C-alpha cells in the first residue's frame, strides 16, 4: 500500500491503475447504492441552489501524449476531458440508473438483437451545427472496422450494422442478443462528435464546456458552453485541468488550495485530509476490486479444495484495515460489488480461518502447500506489499506463499494470463453490467480468464441471462452465477476498494458515485462552487 499513495506513480512507471485498470474503468459502471451518510458541506443538499460561475481546478493524471480523441485517449485526463467536452447517447445518472443523454429513448426488439435509439432534437455542437443521426453514426463507426484504432473496438465488435432510420433515429443490429447494450454507449470512448470530425486539437462536442486551450501533459481549460442543452448542469464558468502525477504533489496541491478536485486519492491521505479541514473527501463504493487468480488448469489448483483453502487463508479485514485504511469493503471471492443491485445478499462471507484452510488442504490430500504469487506495480501500486500480507496470513494455514515481484513492464503481456504461472494478481474496475464483468473474466472463453477456470453450467446460465429482458429472472440467474464463482472459481477477491476523491471546501453538489472517480468522471458538469 505504500504505493497506494501513488495512484499514478510517476510517469516512468506504468500507472498504478493502468491498462486493465484505468483504461477499462472509464467504461466501467457498477450500479451501486453509494456510500451514504456523508455530512460534508459539499454534498448535495436539497435546500441549496447551485451557483454559477467560478473556476474549477482539478489535478488530473496525464501525460504529454494525451489527446482529445476519445478513441485514443489514455489516462485519467482523457476520461475526464471526454465527459467535459462531449455528451454520450446515455449517461449513468447520479441515482445510478441509466438515463438518456443524447438518446432520448431506446427500445430493444425481443431477443435484444435489434435496438432502436431515438435521438434528442435541437442539440447544438460547440460550432453551432445541430446534432443529427449522421453525427451519431459517424461517432459509433469510428470505433468499428478494420482500420479502427479505437480502444472501444472490442466493445463495438458485436455490432453488425448501424442504420439511419430518420434524421434523429438509428437502428443497431447485433450478432447476438444483449439486453445491456445501451450501457455500452455510456463509456467515454463513445463520445458523440460531428460527422467527419477529426481536428482533435480543437475538439467539438455537445458537452457542457468548450475547450479553450490544451497543452498535452500540462493543462487544459474549458469555458462554459452557453448553449448547453441540459438544464441545471455545468454550473462553473471555467474548468481547468492541471496535469499532476506526483502523488505527494497532488495531495499538497489540494492542501494548499491550488486545486479544487482530485481523484484517485491515496487511502493513506484520507484521514489526514479529513482531519485538516482543508478538503472534503468523498468515498464512492463501487466495483473496483483486487484479485488473486489461482491457475485452475495447474495442479494442485485444479482441486477445488485447494482453492477453498486459499480462500480461507487470507485475512481480508487486515488488508482492508491496513492497506485501504478501511476505505472499501472486504470481498467474498466473487466480482459483483455489494453496492450493485444484482449483488447476491444471501451468499455467506468466507472468513479468515486457518484451521478451515488446513482442513481443505487435507481434503485435497495435502499436508501443506507452497506456491508462487506474482505481483506487480502494473496492477496497483504496492501490490507486492499486499502479497506480503497474504503470505503472512496464509503461513498460519500451512500455505507457503512466495511473493514474486514482477517488473511492471511486460507484466500483462508475459506473466498475467501465462498458463505456467501458479497465481497472479490483478485489479478490476468493475464493468457497467454484471454480464460484461462475468463474460470478460469468468466465462470459459473469456478473453481475460485469469484463473483459467471454466464451468459449462456457468457459461450456459451466462449466455441465457444476457438476452433475458425480465428483471426478476435476470436477478435469479446472476445470483446463481455469483454463488458458483464464490464456491468454485479460482479467484480470491480480498477487497473492494472505494473510489476516493477529495475536493476543496468550496465545491458543492458532491455525491458519491459508484461508477468511477470524480463522480463517475462527470464532476465538471455536476458540481458547483460556493462563493
Amino acid at each position, binding site marked *: 500500500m*505504500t504505493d497506494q499513495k501513488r495512484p499514478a506513480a510517476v510517469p516512468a512507471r506504468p500507472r498504478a491503475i493502468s491498462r486493465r485498470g484505468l483504461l477499462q474503468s472509464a467504461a466501467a459502471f457498477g450500479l451501486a447504492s453509494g456510500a451514504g451518510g456523508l455530512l460534508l458541506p459539499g454534498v448535495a443538499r436539497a435546500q441549496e441552489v447551485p451557483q454559477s460561475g467560478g473556476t474549477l481546478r482539478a489535478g488530473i493524471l496525464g501525460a504529454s501524449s494525451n489527446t482529445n480523441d476519445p478513441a485514443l485517449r489514455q489516462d485519467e485526463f482523457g476520461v475526464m476531458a471526454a465527459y467535459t467536452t462531449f455528451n454520450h447517447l446515455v449517461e449513468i445518472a447520479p441515482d445510478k440508473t441509466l438515463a438518456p443523454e443524447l438518446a432520448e429513448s431506446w427500445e430493444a426488439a425481443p431477443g435484444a438483437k435489434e435496438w432502436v435509439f431515438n435521438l434528442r432534437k435541437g442539440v447544438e455542437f460547440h460550432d453551432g451545427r445541430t446534432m443529427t443521426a449522421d453525427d451519431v453514426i459517424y461517432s459509433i463507426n469510428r470505433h468499428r472496422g478494420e482500420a479502427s484504432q479505437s480502444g472501444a473496438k472490442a466493445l463495438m465488435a458485436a455490432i453488425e450494422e448501424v442504420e439511419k432510420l430518420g434524421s434523429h433515429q438509428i437502428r443497431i443490429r447485433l450478432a447476438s442478443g444483449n439486453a445491456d447494450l445501451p450501457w455500452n454507449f455510456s463509456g467515454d470512448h463513445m463520445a458523440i462528435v460531428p460527422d467527419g470530425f477529426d481536428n482533435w486539437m480543437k475538439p467539438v462536442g455537445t458537452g457542457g464546456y468548450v475547450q479553450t486551450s490544451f497543452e498535452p501533459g500540462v493543462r487544459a481549460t474549458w469555458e462554459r458552453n452557453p448553449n448547453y442543452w441540459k438544464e441545471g448542469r455545468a454550473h462553473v464558468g471555467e474548468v481547468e485541468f492541471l496535469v499532476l502525477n506526483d502523488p*505527494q504533489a497532488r495531495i499538497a496541491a489540494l492542501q494548499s488550495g491550488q486545486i479544487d478536485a482530485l481523484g484517485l486519492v491515496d487511502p493513506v491521505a484520507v484521514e489526514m485530509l479529513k482531519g485538516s479541514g482543508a478538503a472534503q473527501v468523498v468515498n464512492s463504493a463501487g466495483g473496483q476490486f483486487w484479485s488473486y487468480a489461482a491457475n485452475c488448469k495447474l495442479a494442485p489448483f485444479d482441486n477445488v479444495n485447494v482453492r477453498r483453502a486459499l480462500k480461507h487463508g487470507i485475512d481480508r479485514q487486515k488488508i482492508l484495515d*491496513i492497506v485501504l485504511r478501511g476505505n472499501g469493503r472486504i470481498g467474498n471471492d466473487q466480482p459483483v460489488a455489494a453496492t450493485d443491485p444484482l449483488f447476491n445478499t444471501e451468499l455467506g462471507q468466507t472468513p479468515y480461518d486457518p484451521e478451515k484452510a488446513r482442513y481443505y488442504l487435507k481434503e485435497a490430500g495435502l499436508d501443506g502447500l507452497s506456491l508462487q504469487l506474482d505481483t506487480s506495480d502494473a496492477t496497483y501500486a504496492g501490490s507486492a506489499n499486499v502479497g506480503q500480507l497474504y503470505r503472512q496470513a496464509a503461513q498460519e494455514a500451512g500455505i507457503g506463499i512466495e511473493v514474486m515481484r514482477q517488473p511492471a513492464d511486460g507484466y500483462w503481456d508475459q506473466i498475467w494470463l501465462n498458463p505456467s504461472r501458479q497465481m497472479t494478481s490483478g485489479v478490476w474496475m468493475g464493468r457497467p453490467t454484471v454480464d460484461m464483468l462475468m463474460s470478460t473474466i469468468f466465462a470459459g472463453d473469456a478473453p481475460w480468464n485469469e484463473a483459467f477456470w471454466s464451468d459449462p453450467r456457468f457459461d450456459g446460465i451466462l449466455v441465457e441471462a444476457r438476452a433475458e429482458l425480465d428483471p426478476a429472472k435476470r436477478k435469479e440467474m446472476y445470483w446463481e452465477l455469483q454463488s458458483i464463482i464464490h464456491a468454485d472459481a479460482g479467484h480470491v477477491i480480498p477487497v473492494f476498494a472505494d473510489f476516493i476523491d477529495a475536493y476543496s471546501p468550496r465545491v458543492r453538489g458532491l455525491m458519491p458515485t459508484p461508477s468511477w472517480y470524480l463522480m463517475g468522471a462527470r464532476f465538471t458538469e455536476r458540481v458547483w462552487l460556493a462563493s
Partner: protein
Amino acid sequence: MSLHDITAPPLRAPGFARLPVLAAAAFCLACLAAAVAAPVLAPHDPADLVALPWQPPGDGFLLGTDQLGRDMLSRIIWGARVSIGLSAAITALAFAFGVPAGLAAAVLGGWADQAMSRTVDLFMALPPLILALLALSVTGTSLVTLTLVAAFLAALRVFRLSRALGVDLATRDFVDIARLRGEGTLRIAACEILPNAAGPLIAEAGLRFVFAFLFVASLSFLGLGVQPPMADWGGMVRENAGALNYGGIAPLVPAAAIALLAISVNLLGDRAAGGRTGR
C-alpha cells in the same frame, strides 16, 4: 607554497580534526555491521506488520513504524544491506572494468587508447540520468540491470580517472625501467602503475560509492530503482514521503541514514586521499 606571518598562531593540532573522521568511521562501520548482521540485529522481520502505520519512535519501536506499520529500525537495518550492497556492487563492478580498461588505454596508447577513449567520451557526453532512463527502459528494471547500468555509468568516470593516472604514471622513470627489463603491458600496469594509482582510486571509490547511492535513490524516485517490498533507503524515503504532509518523521529516518552515510564515506574518502583540507 602556503606562507603565513611569523606572528600568526600555529595551525591547530591535527588531532582536533580527527573527531568527525572517527565519527564517520564509526557510522560506516555501524552501517556495515547492520548490513552484514541484519538477521541478527533487526528486532523484527522487515516485512512483518508489527504495529499501526507511522507510529512515532518509542514503545518498542526505536525508530517508529513505516507506512505499513513495519518496524522502521528493522527496515533501516535490512535496508543497509540492500543499499550498501547495491552501491558496493556498483562501485566494485565499475572499478573492476574501469580500472583495467583505463590503465590498459594509458599503457597501450595508440589506436586502442583512441578507440576506448572516444567511446567513453561519447557516453560521457550524454547526461547520465537520461542514459540510465533509456538503458533501464530497454533492459527492464531488475536488481541486476540496475546494478549493471549504474556500474557502467560509474565505470566511464573510473576509466577516465584511471587513464589519466595511468598516462601520468606511464611517463615515470620507473615505468621506463620496467619496460627496459622487457616486461609486458599487463605486468607493468599491474605491478608498476596500479599500486601508485591506488590512493586516488580509493578516494574515487568513496566518491563513486556515494554517487551510486544517490543515483539509485534518484532512480527509485523515477520508479526505476530498487523495487518494493525490498527495503532500500532511497525507496523508504520515497514510500514514506507521504508522512511529511502529516508532520510525520518516518521519511526523515532513511533520509538521515542516506545523508549520514554519504557524508561519512565522503569524509573518509577525503582522509584517504590525504590531507584534512584537501577535498
